[in-house]
């Protein structure tokens, strides 16, 4: 598989996953907004910071309010991580990859993009927004299904899955962190039922509520939720699950030593984390550390598979020695 194509496939998957998870993040916020405890307020500025987009936002908008932040996250093309931007990038990448991906996958991505583009003006109304984003998430699942069921699980497929799981685990940590954006009055204790409801919103946005109730802690409270979304081995959006998947897909690729090493560093760090009874500040620090580790895994993959030949250029050409037959 061509290095350039591997990179395109990988990024296409990341953009699709980012679009879905940004949609989930937004739905999580909408839940949270509806359930805000008396006296609490929502920190829109904290939200853009958690998403890692505060600088960009400040350049584009004069003030943090719901309409601005939502437009910025959903349909603003100045924000390269907005849902619409992600879909545009994913579609562009997909267009370059028509020879690699099953035809139906391209058609589905193309349709999703066109539908989102048509409806992106309506997203300032909460009810419409919800419908539009849920439709996008459903569309994303049908792409995932098409790729999983109609595409050879070849090298290109491994890169798709790598992109997906790296992006997904990163986004899960960010969605967990939106809790930090809820500003509660000092007298309220963390296990207040009203605050617990906020965690229900986070779980639901990741389609994790039902599974948490079956497999997680008996009550919905912060320690249990964070622990579940980071460490659960069976829920497909937890960081732990994603890392296991990354490992298994990396194992299918040649020359994977350095990427696997970066992965295991992350594994060990997460195993060592005590996630119960965390202060919000420490929780944020832990989540940040996981994001940095994921960035490191990405760098190793990019270095080994995408930019390998650039590093070779200028030096001696490997010539026929490294040529692969067949």
């Amino acid at each position, binding site marked *: *598989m*061509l*290095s*350039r*194509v*591997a990179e395109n496939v990988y990024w296409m998957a990341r953009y699709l996953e980012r679009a879905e998870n940004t949609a989930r993040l937004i739905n999580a916020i909408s839940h949270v907004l509806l359930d805000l405890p008396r006296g609490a307020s929502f920190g829109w500025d904290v939200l853009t910071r958690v998403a890692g987009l505060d600088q960009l936002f400040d350049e584009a908008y004069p003030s943090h309010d719901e309409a601005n932040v939502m437009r910025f996250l959903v349909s603003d093309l100045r924000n390269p991580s907005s849902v619409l931007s992600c879909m545009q990038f994913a579609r*562009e990448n997909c*267009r*370059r*990859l*028509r*020879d*690699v991906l099953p*035809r139906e996958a*391209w*058609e589905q991505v*193309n*349709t999703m993009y*066109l539908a989102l583009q048509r409806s992106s003006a309506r997203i300032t109304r909460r009810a419409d927004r919800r419908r539009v984003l849920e439709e996008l998430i459903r569309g994303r699942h049908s792409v995932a299904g098409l790729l999983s069921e109609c595409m050879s699980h070849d*090298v290109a497929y491994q890169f798709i899955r790598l992109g997906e799981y790296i992006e997904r685990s990163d986004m899960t940590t960010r969605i967990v962190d939106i809790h930090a954006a809820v500003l509660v009055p000092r007298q309220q204790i963390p296990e207040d039922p009203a605050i617990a409801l906020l965690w229900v919103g986070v779980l639901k946005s990741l389609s994790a509520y039902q599974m948490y109730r079956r497999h997680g802690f008996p009550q919905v409270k912060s320690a249990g939720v964070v622990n579940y979304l980071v460490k659960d081995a069976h829920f497909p959006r937890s960081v732990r699950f994603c890392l296991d998947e990354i490992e298994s897909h990396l194992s299918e*690729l*040649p*020359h994977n030593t350095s990427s696997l090493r970066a992965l295991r560093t992350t594994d060990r760090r997460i195993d060592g984390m005590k996630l119960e009874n965390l202060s919000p500040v420490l929780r944020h620090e832990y989540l940040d550390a996981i994001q940095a580790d994921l960035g490191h895994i990405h760098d190793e993959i990019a270095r*080994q*598979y995408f930019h*390998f*030949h650039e590093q070779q250029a200028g030096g001696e*050409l*490997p*010539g*026929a020695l*490294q*040529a*692969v*037959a*067949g």
Partner: protein
Amino acid sequence: MGRPDFQIDGDDVLDHIFSNHALCYRVPDGRATMKLELQKYPMGNAFDELVGPGRVPRPAAQALLRYLEDLDESELQTRRAAVDAAIVTMGITFTIYSDGENIDRAWPFDLIPRVMPRTEWQRIERGLKQRLTALNLFINDLYNEQRIVRDAVFPAEVLAGSRNFRKQCVGFVPRFGVWAHICGTDLVRDRDGTVYVLEDNLRVPSGVSYMLENRLLMKSAFPELFEACRIHPVDGYTAQLYEMLAALSPRSGERPVIAVLTPGVYNSAYFEHSYLAQQMGADLVEGVDLVVGADDCVYMKTIDGLRRVDVIYRRIDDDFLDPETFRPDSALGVCGLMRSWRKGKVGIANAPGAGVADDKVVYAFVPKIIRYYLDEDPIIPNVPSYLCMNDSEREFVLSNLDTLVVKPANESGGYGMMIGPHASPAERAQCAERVRADPRNYMAQPTLTLSTAPTLVGDGLAPRHLDLRPFVLQSSGIYVTTGGLTRVALREGSLVVNSSQGGGSKDTWIVEATD
């Protein structure tokens, strides 16, 4: 300035051969529904492909027209809407560059197919094979012995003035002696029904993917028609293309590694490049993905190191192919590609230098070329052509500028063309000056009246002009597509079939019919 899809491959606008008589058929007021009634079809004075004199359907089109007449209007509009939606979903697009941005436009497609009886097609098919066989013998001769020049059948000064002759190719014989592996031949039909070759596209002809997609669209829109009519399938093309390319592989016994070399996603024909790679299971590569090793073999840069490439189907022009040999500033090509090709380490289709026969002056010699190499009469005639390099013909051209079309030999996309009947006296005078200054570079042809076919316009059918581009493949064997890509001038009064300028396309049916 828009840049259209089809001009990229060095081709043609057809506006020079049109006469303006397309009438738009409008629905009479006060009718809630209407049907496509043949008796109201506004015949022009061109040859119509589907409707004969007296509005009698031609035998091959009888079943189709009867079916359309029986279809009620809402049904037709429903199917048209379904097809339009499918085009958007399937992402069948062509790209126009405008103000530095590239815009994807949906592929304009007309629902009414163009129909041709198989008996007629078989003759055309033979003619196309004959023509490409002769052209390949000609190209190979030019780069080697030049017998045809020594025998004074082809003038040395025409060869000397050829812009597409590549001296880097002299003395080389590619496998099978074939240079132009893929040829898109433009055919037109004049008022009297005669089919002519308008030009041979031997560099990087495009459009075949649209031919294949058009058929898919038609099958989904009118499945019942495919049961009723005996329409010959077109889907064999990509398998034939694969076989043709595989035969060029320098290594035997293995599954050859075939790459489609594209200039990239911003090229207007990118859709087609990726489509063909996908259909053949080949790798779609850009220049940066390839490298020529110290062993002169071509490699592609994979995640697992370098992998040898056996055959390159290139979709970039000669000039950009290899900065070591041609334009040094090319960022699209591969350094050392020509070296590798000349050493027989890689097959390239079309071969570099094949464009020497894609020249409007060389075109005029094709009937002689066919007789010289094959000792046969041409099966499909050329449009009569006057070469300005010959004194008597030049004088004829200069005194008939108001009725002729004057074309420069090497320009593509219709640049520098003078359409006599449409030109102002000043334009004609300028043209005469250019012809006198550089006679080798000009030729002229009479203005033809392109044939028409019924086309959906508003609520009814109106005749619109069209041409036909079949694709011919040659390496170890020779193959012609069943039919080809029919391009149609969709806009009323517009006479240009280019997709960017209101041109569209139709499905092309070759059917069993008794004439």
